[in-house]
């Protein structure tokens, strides 16, 4: 708290300082720069006379050259101030839990605006359409497009389009007509607004704003489908609004009398041309980016820059052709993401990802702050109670009507109908934002007399929706949910079971392939694999790309089996049952992922590349985060089990915000979790394979036993720390540590549970009796592979990218074949865990 206020104070001081410095002395210039941002600096320099003002008598050592840099300086300063606001807001999560960040930023904007107003008596800084549309919006849109979860987006594209196009038109038309009706009815005082102008106003108010929506929805946890629908709608309907706006703007310019049927038809045609043309431009640029990244191998350093430049160019090109720039950028991002990620070096992919977030989040912050600042201006405040209140009311009501009506239609076709609560959230999430404001400011004062009233109304609507609906959204959701489920304090079992159901559901979805396993998609996929990838992807990337996951999966499985086979060959069956395998395993992976080993990392980077799409490597952030949670945990130790459980349960996929969360760096954690789970699963599978297809029982028990026995294995992260240094050493340590106490717990445990696995005592005995311990059905394949194909699957699937990995594996394999499997199988007497047979130490030197 104290620090928070300290920051606030600091900020105020800074502002006053900069305000005093800049505003007082530079009023004229800044106003200049307001008018034409682009050329401001040049006009400044002319005013100053370029170099040296007047004759100088002596060489000045330093000179005060504020005029040279005033514009740039102010821009940078404002960015800093806006981001500092965010810093302050985010330093206190008690507040942001209640009030969404966007609302707080706007409030900060009020304060800042007030200060400027107090200093200047005029609002020097407002959000101008130029700045907004050309410098702030593009990166937000590009980010949204680039991080769009494509599958989800295209699965729901129908619904999204219906909401975005029909919904937006409905909003525009209904609002315009109703306001006009009320005007005719005399509810507003005398206003000079024609029907067309009402429609124009309606169209600019129609769009749900992506920036505001994401900001609020991120704090309310809604399911993915709902999120993507609202998010996709808000993205696409921006395009639609701009189109509508332009059409009506044209109509207004033409004047009511000029408009006949032909013009209206033209308007409709232009609507489609602009929308589809914009999308086409985007697609063209997306293809261009993809193609370009095929050839940027030699300039990896600036590789990421291409995405940004081309993305921006797609925006500008569409704008130049008077097509929909927003749609263009969205589709550019959506299209190129897959190929860009496959083509570029992994580091570049990471860079793009983070830089994108920085830009998007940064400009989002600036947008909100300036939305607030813009309000503090006497000129725009023209009050007309009827107009303003009716607008707010209609916006709210028609959103509800539109959503419910469209959903009603959609639900007749959707197989997953949107529920009532979803519809309420969708309607309530109809936040208007900066796009509406930007458009309102763009209105031509000469044509529209009441421009200021419109701007002012737009601002009020924006504040109402962002602040009011933003704040009440969360309580509303919880209230609705509570009504449905009546959640009290859940018991632990309930929590667990709920979580379990979540995981189960995800699994069932995966099994039933329900996320779009349909005819069209598979057709598209084969087409894409055949042609598009061929053109847009590097040959090397192409090979890896679609099978990456499978390969990774199989490699792990293989490695796992190698390890076990190795152990068996060494003659001790216990070896398998011992945690040493697991430890060794974990270590192996941890060291692969480990970032604390620069020298290894250098060698490993290639290895990362091979599987880059599945596991983006963890930047050091995650290590810190990890420590962070660790710390949090020790504190929580005293606290009750509920808290603990909540904190550590794996999230099921439903709760993952894929990549589209703009401020979510917890992504890393998720990935980490995924890796953890993956490793575990693989380990279990290979162990259960070894045990003859009865998964779980034995494995689990030994594991648990083991962990009980070794309190030092308390947290694997610790293990990681100790072991990641030297695999081989760790290997032997793990082996010997658990060497002698293991036989006892593992066998009795097994015996105590006759019938073993969930399913099949029969199966187990069957396997044992046929002495096919080594080759359960599915293992057989693998064994076959590894013994027959010399370079093995790994070599085929991912070319020997990492020398280390190859060497490591190669050595293992050699040792595998050096002994006769069958023979060893027969005399697998429990030899005492001899000086444990490390994978040849040379492998990592």
């Amino acid at each position: 708290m104290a620090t928070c206020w300290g920051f606030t104070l600091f900020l105020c001081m800074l502002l006053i300082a900069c305000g005093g410095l800049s505003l007082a002395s530079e009023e004229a210039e800044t106003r200049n720069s307001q008018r034409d941002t682009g050329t401001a600096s040049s006009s400044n320099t002319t005013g100053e006379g370029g170099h040296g003002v007047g004759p100088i008598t002596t060489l000045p050592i330093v000179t005060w050259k504020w005029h040279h840099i005033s514009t740039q300086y102010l821009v940078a300063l404002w960015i800093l101030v806006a981001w500092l606001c965010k810093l302050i807001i985010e330093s206190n999560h008690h507040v942001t839990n209640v009030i969404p960040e966007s609302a707080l930023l706007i409030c900060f904007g009020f304060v800042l605006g007030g200060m400027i107003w107090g200093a200047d008596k005029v609002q020097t800084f407002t959000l101008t359409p130029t700045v907004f549309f050309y410098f702030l919006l593009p990166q937000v849109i590009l980010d949204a497009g680039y991080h769009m979860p494509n599958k989800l987006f295209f699965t729901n594209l129908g619904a999204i389009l219906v909401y975005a196009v029909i919904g937006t038109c409905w909003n525009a038309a209904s609002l315009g007509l109703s306001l006009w009706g009320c005007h005719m009815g005399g509810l507003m005082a005398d206003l000079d607004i024609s029907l067309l102008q009402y429609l124009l106003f309606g169209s600019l108010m129609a769009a749900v704003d992506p920036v505001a929506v994401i900001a609020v929805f991120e704090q309310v946890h809604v399911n993915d489908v709902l999120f993507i629908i609202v998010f996709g709608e808000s993205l696409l309907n921006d395009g639609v609004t701009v189109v509508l706006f332009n059409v009506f703007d044209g109509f207004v310019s033409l004047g009511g009398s000029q408009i006949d049927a032909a013009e209206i038809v033209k308007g409709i045609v232009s609507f489609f041309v602009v929308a589809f043309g914009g999308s086409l431009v985007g697609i063209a640029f997306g293809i261009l980016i993809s193609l370009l990244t095929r050839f940027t191998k030699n300039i990896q350093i600036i590789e990421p820059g291409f995405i940004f430049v081309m993305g921006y160019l797609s925006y500008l090109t569409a704008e130049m052709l008077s097509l929909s720039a927003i749609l263009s950028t969205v589709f550019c991002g959506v299209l190129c993401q897959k190929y860009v990620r496959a083509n570029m070096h992994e580091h570049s992919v990471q860079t793009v990802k983070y830089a994108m977030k920085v830009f998007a989040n940064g400009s989002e912050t600036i947008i909100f702050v300036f939305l607030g600042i813009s309000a503090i201006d006497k000129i725009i405040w023209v009050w007309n109670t009827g107009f303003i209140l009716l607008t707010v009311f209609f916006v709210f009501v028609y959103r509800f009507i539109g959503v419910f009506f469209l959903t009603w239609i959609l639900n007749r076709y959707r197989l997953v109908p949107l529920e009532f609560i979803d519809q309420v959230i969708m309607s309530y999430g109809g936040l208007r934002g900066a796009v509406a404001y930007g458009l309102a400011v763009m209105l031509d004062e000469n044509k529209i007399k009441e421009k200021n009233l419109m701007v002012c109304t737009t601002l009020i609507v924006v504040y109402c929706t962002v602040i009011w609906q933003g704040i009440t959204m969360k309580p509303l959701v919880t209230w609705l949910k509570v009504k449905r489920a009546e959640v009290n304090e859940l018991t632990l079992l309930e929590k667990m079971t709920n979580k379990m159901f979540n995981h189960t559901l995800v699994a069932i979805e995966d099994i039933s392939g329900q996320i779009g396993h349909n005819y069209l998609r598979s057709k598209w996929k084969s087409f894409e694999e055949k042609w598009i990838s061929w053109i847009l992807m590097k040959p090397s990337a192409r090979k890896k790309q679609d099978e990456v996951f499978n390969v990774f999966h199989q490699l792990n499985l293989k490695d796992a089996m190698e390890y076990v086979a190795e152990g068996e060959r060494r003659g001790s069956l216990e070896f398998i049952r011992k945690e040493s395998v697991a430890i060794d395993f974990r270590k192996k992976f941890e060291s692969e992922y480990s970032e604390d080993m620069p020298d290894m990392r250098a060698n490993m980077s290639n290895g990362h590349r091979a599987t880059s799409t599945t596991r983006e490597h963890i930047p050091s952030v995650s290590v810190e985060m990890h420590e962070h949670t660790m710390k949090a945990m020790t504190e929580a130790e005293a606290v009750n089990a509920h808290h603990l459980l909540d904190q550590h349960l794996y999230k099921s996929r439903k709760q993952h915000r894929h990549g589209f969360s703009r401020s979510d760096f917890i992504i890393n954690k998720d990935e980490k979790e995924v890796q953890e789970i993956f490793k575990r699963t693989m380990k279990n599978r290979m162990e259960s394979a070894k045990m003859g297809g009865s998964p779980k029982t034995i494995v689990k028990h030994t594991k648990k036993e083991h962990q009980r026995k070794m309190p030092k294995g308390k947290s694997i992260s610790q293990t990681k720390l100790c072991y990641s240094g030297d695999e081989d050493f760790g290997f032997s340590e793990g082996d010997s540590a658990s060497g002698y106490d293991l036989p006892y717990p593992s066998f009795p445990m097994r015996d105590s549970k006759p019938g073993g696995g969930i399913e099949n005592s029969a199966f187990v005995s069957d396997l044992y009796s046929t002495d096919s311990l080594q080759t359960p059905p599915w293992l057989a394949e693998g064994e076959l592979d590894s013994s027959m194909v010399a370079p093995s699957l790994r070599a085929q699937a991912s070319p020997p990218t990492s020398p280390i990995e190859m060497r490591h594996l190669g050595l293992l394999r050699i040792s595998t074949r050096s002994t006769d499997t069958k023979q060893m199988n027969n005399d697998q007497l429990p030899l005492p865990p001899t000086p444990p047979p490390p994978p040849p130490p040379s492998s990592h030197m």
Partner: protein
Amino acid sequence: MGSRASRLLREEEIEEIKKETGFSHSQITRLYSRFTSLDKGENGTLSREDFQRIPELAINPLGDRIINAFFPEGEDQVNFRGFMRTLAHFRPIEDNEKNKNPSATEPLNSRTNKLLFAFRLYDLDRDDKISRDELLQVLRMMVGVNISDEQLGSIADRTIQEADTNGDSCISFNEFIKASFVVNIHICTVVLVLVNI
């Protein structure tokens, strides 16, 4: 793919499955096409390996347990009927079934059966009790690595303590149902999507 699948599936078979599981015709054909695409051996049954090939399951903490739930006791193959029967647990509860008392001929997607499915996921040895060990195993699967065994143990103890009414330090199915009274049963329904518009 869809057309091939529906050709292979006989109408009467569909009818039977429909009756048993309550899936609609199109859902069944769609799931059948999924079934055949999973069935790499093309012998009309799925093995564990077929399931394990689904990449997403490898990153599901309960993936393997759920796979196991598809296999009837003692078997390592599951045919389409069995596959559908398991999936049927996840159909949404229909309104008219909601208030029905648990009876012998309960549909697979009833609340009790859903809970039974979850219960089975815990209950490895099928003695109709969740022991502390079993609970611990599940916990261990569902939590991250950075939680200690002591903490986990205490969670398990508490969990049992909360749910155990007859003091045998195990959770029976009845106790499980009671303790899971407010488990949000709505979230344990998967609506199978054929084509999502």
